[in-house]
């Protein structure tokens, strides 16, 4: 710390005013307002009344909300591990490519990441089309009958998981690649001298040293996927039954249809708490693992 530091109160406040004002109006006030509304029977049209924890109670006991949380979990469990494993393997491939070619590959795989969920949904709805879609064409090579991918309870959720993986793959692969490049090459050379094979090198060197990167991607990926709603909104509107109604889609539909919104807001706050706890849990599990091997 500098001993003779001077206070620049005026300049500091002047430069901070915009961010503080905007965050206050558009984040902090809505947040505390949400907490307040969640205790009220609130609507646009009527006098609101204090109802205590009733909104939360209604959400927790709503079978559909429970189902939506379950759908969100299943969805995240389909997307995140698949995406991480694929991008981990792919990052290892790209790392060993020539510089010029890997530059091209990196740029190309990142492009889907910048595409919106809406455009991805439009594309994938056609890929899954019953009559002329690519998916049925491909399974036709193997002699399978066409499937109504998005209308079948068994295939709807995995069918939405595919574009989610497609959208996120490039980003995770590049982060993995950045992590791989941070591992000193000498570790692998030492392992080579010991006669370690590719699998051993990956298991004993790459994966342990990539733990923080993987953890980061696991937590952020999990939160992003469980919050996903655009794909199911556009591709299936939550159906068939409520097989693809993710928690956020549930909240959104209630907010649009219900007169009283205290409910929806209580649900979104609850979800916020649930997500926070899940990511805290993942961090703890991985941290304790770290403590074991010192």
């Amino acid at each position: 710390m500098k001993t003779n530091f001077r206070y620049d109160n005026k300049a500091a406040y002047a430069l901070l005013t915009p961010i503080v004002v905007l965050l206050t109006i558009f984040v902090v006030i809505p947040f505390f307002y949400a907490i307040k509304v969640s205790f009220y029977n609130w609507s646009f049209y009527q006098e609101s009344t204090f109802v205590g924890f009733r909104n939360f109670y209604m959400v927790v006991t709503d079978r559909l909300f429970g189902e939506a949380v379950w759908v969100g979990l299943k969805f995240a469990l389909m997307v995140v591990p698949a995406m991480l494993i694929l991008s981990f393997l792919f990052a290892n491939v790209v790392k060993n490519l020539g510089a010029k070619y890997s530059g091209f590959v990196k740029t190309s795989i990142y492009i889907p990441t910048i595409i919106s969920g809406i455009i991805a949904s439009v594309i994938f709805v056609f890929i899954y089309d019953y009559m002329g879609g690519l998916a049925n064409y491909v399974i036709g090579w193997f002699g399978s009958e066409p499937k109504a991918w998005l209308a079948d309870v068994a295939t709807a959720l995995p069918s939405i998981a595919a574009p989610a993986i497609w959208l996120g793959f490039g980003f995770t692969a590049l982060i993995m690649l950045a992590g791989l490049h941070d591992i000193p090459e000498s570790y692998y050379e030492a392992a080579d001298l010991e006669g370690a094979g590719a699998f051993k090198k990956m298991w004993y060197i790459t994966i342990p040293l990539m733990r923080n990167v993987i953890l980061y991607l696991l937590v952020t990926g999990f939160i992003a996927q469980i919050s996903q709603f655009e794909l199911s909104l556009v591709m299936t509107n939550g159906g068939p039954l409520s097989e693809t109604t993710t928690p956020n889609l549930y909240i959104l539909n209630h907010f649009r249809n219900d007169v009283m919104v205290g409910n929806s807001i209580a649900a979104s706050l609850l979800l916020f708490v649930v997500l926070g706890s899940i990511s805290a849990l993942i961090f703890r599990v991985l941290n304790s693992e770290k403590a074991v091997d010192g």
Partner: protein
Amino acid sequence: MRTQSLVQKSALTVIAGVVTLLALFPLLWVVIAGFKGQAEVLATPFRFFPKEWLVANYTDILGDAAFLKSMGVTFGGALLFAALSLIVNSMAAYVFARLEFRFKSIMWVYVIMTMFIPGMAIMLTSFIVVDKLGMLDTLAVLVLPGVASAGHMFFIRQFYLNIPMALEEAALIDGAGRIKIFTSVFVPMSFPVFVIVGIGSYLGYWNSFIWPTMTITNPNLYQIMQYLYNFRAERVTELGLLMAGSALAAIPTIVLFLIFQKYIISGIKISGLK
């Protein structure tokens, strides 16, 4: 150096090529489907390339005033959004990186805390707030709510922390004020980090769908994703046109990405692991 056999090398090259093609395939497909006639987009059996290449979908959608308008409005909004986001967040980043002032730690906690409030938790009450402010159906409701971002501020601050103190001290001795130092020393050095944050903001705005759908009902302000969503619902049979529109709506983003991709890809490393 590790040695790799030619076989290994070419196997890797092939795998990388196949995955890259798979990643790009859906986009290639939508671009190509845009060249198909209405009946051919979903022709059975499936065909990747059209029987004959039609440009009618592309010329038609480009001739649609509503499409062009929403592209234009969204592009303008996205640029404005990105510019404001850079200004607001970099000013705060500079303050937190370099200045000492009363209540600094309180202000820091106040700003950073907002990073942990998920968008969905506050979207519904944000709607009520912008409604009360009379902002519904204005450009302001699209641009202002997301401009201040603790995440972006934090990211720019990490960059500013690495700018040598000496540069600033020299300017201070020359009698420059803090604000002058920020605009004439820090801003010009910020290009790499501004590219990353600017593109991030631009993308967030360009791809946003649910917020415009909630707050905008005036067709003159329809955002491009909102337009595509409505188009799909209302003009269900015009598949080729929808494909062409979707392809065109992705183009500004892809072009921007290709121009700045060098910075974005190197920026991923910093942004991801900090």
